[in-house]
């Protein structure tokens, strides 16, 4: 478990003109680990995630993701990195002019999978996120929680080693938030490393998972009390207690 890192950041800094957004970040995420990235608005959480899917390149230092190293990445290699990372956002980023099926399928279309394989896998993932029956609906017809589940389905359809989630529950009601969190935990329990950014410390502090505190571009605290990843037993425990102990009445984790 401890041996392999799927994400590594080494003395990474990011500057935009005169603003320094990240300062000397050092960070490793182990294979299958679940990590919360917590910090106030403007701390640099989104920027840090963008470094991982290489939407931005470091001003100093480097990022290593699997076999990809930022310092000798060519522009045309970036798509191949992205296929190994699922990314989920606060605003879902779905294709409005296509149905749920196509929104998930697109992540496989770009890799050139056969139609048969695409159909098989997309149906499977849609079933897992509980949206099989809505596969022919357009995103506008779905609730926020459902749209986020489509986005998550798209993010995991290629079975990535890494799932990045940038404030995935930012637009959602508390009970839907709990659902989405549990879905992310479940994905983690099957072996995918998850890095989730949020400004809501109260929401995530009670799961015992690793929490990185980011403030003004500096990692101030890196703490973990429980195991690195969610086990099935732990998942059951959390869903049993949903709305009670770990989850407060308004869906926030609070104990």
């Amino acid at each position, binding site marked *: 478990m401890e041996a392999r890192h799927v994400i590594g950041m080494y003395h990474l800094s990011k500057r935009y003109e005169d603003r320094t957004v990240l300062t000397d970040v050092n960070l490793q995420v182990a294979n299958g680990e679940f990590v919360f990235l917590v910090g106030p608005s403007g701390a640099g959480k989104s920027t840090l995630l963008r470094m991982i*899917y290489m939407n931005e390149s470091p001003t100093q230092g480097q990022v290593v993701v699997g076999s990809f190293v930022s310092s000798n990445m060519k522009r*045309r290699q970036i*798509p*191949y*990195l*992205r*296929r190994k990372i699922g*990314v989920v956002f606060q605003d879902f*980023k*779905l*294709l*409005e*002019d296509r149905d749920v099926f196509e929104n998930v399928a*697109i*992540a496989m*279309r*770009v*890799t*050139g*999978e*056969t*139609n048969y394989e695409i159909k098989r896998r997309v149906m499977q993932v849609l079933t897992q996120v509980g949206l099989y029956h809505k596969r022919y609906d357009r995103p506008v017809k779905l609730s926020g929680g459902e749209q986020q589940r489509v986005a998550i389905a*798209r993010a995991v359809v290629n079975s990535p080693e890494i799932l990045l989630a940038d404030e995935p529950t930012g637009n959602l009601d508390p009970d839907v938030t709990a659902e989405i969190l549990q879905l992310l935990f479940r994905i983690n329990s099957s072996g995918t490393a998850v890095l989730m950014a949020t400004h809501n410390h109260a929401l995530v502090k009670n799961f015992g998972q690793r929490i990185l505190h980011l403030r003004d571009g500096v990692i101030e605290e890196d703490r973990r009390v429980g195991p690195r990843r969610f086990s099935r037993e732990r998942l059951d425990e959390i869903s049993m207690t949903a709305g009670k102990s770990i989850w407060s009445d308004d869906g926030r984790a609070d104990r």
Partner: protein
Amino acid sequence: MKLYQGLYLIKESFKTLGRHKGIMFLSIVIMSLTLLVLAVFLLVTDNVLSALERTRQELSVYAYIEEGLTQNDIEQQYKKLLAMKEVESIVFISKAEAMTEFEEEFGEGSAILESLESNPLPASFRIALKDGYKEQSNIRLFAEQVTAVSGIENVDYGKEFLDRFSLMARVFLYVDMILGFIVVLSSVFIISNTVRLTILSRQKSIEILKLVGATNRFITTPFVLEGAFQGGLASLVSLALLALIYLVVVKMLPDIAFLDVQTSVLYVLTCIVLGSLGSFAALRRFLRL
């Protein structure tokens, strides 16, 4: 690119054309009008060039024969001239025929001629030149050679006219080439900007495609196919508009010909290429390829 991807992208381009009917329609209208300028330019160029070519074809050199040569002398001259590499064919025009031609041109019983007792017009050879020898400089050289043949009094090839004609043709060609360059360049520019509208309206989709690991080729292919389709369709529309204009203009200038099939096909193909290039150019800027 894998087969499944290729098929998907082709299907996708047509679906997209359907999904964004409004903006596609607008693009095709703008493109058609832009291409109409190109089509008019082609029609004018085509007609001027064929008029020039016709005039050039009709060029012939007249070699006037001295008075009082025998039949034998004239046959010798004929053979000598026919042996020259520039000569395509020769027609002998006797004094009598020259008279007839003159009369045909100026009306029978012309007062000037009737006042003369003998026929003042010399016999001549009308020499048609081979295709490669119809340039101004060649003709001048050829005329000198013909003058050197014994018994040829003088040679006439409409020097003044030819000089002016050659100059005109050359000026036209240069101006036409520059105009053509400008017209094509502005078409590409306008088409490329029209495509930018389409791209901006699909900016979010492009961003999502990049996020899930689409290569630039995957992203650009549908746009290029759509550009080709729009270019082709717009060229057909512009040809139809050109035909309407032609039907009006031909009433005033009946000698004008419409673009022939070959040129039209070439034109449509060019527009298809322009459409896809315009798309590609616009995307290149957008994706920072």
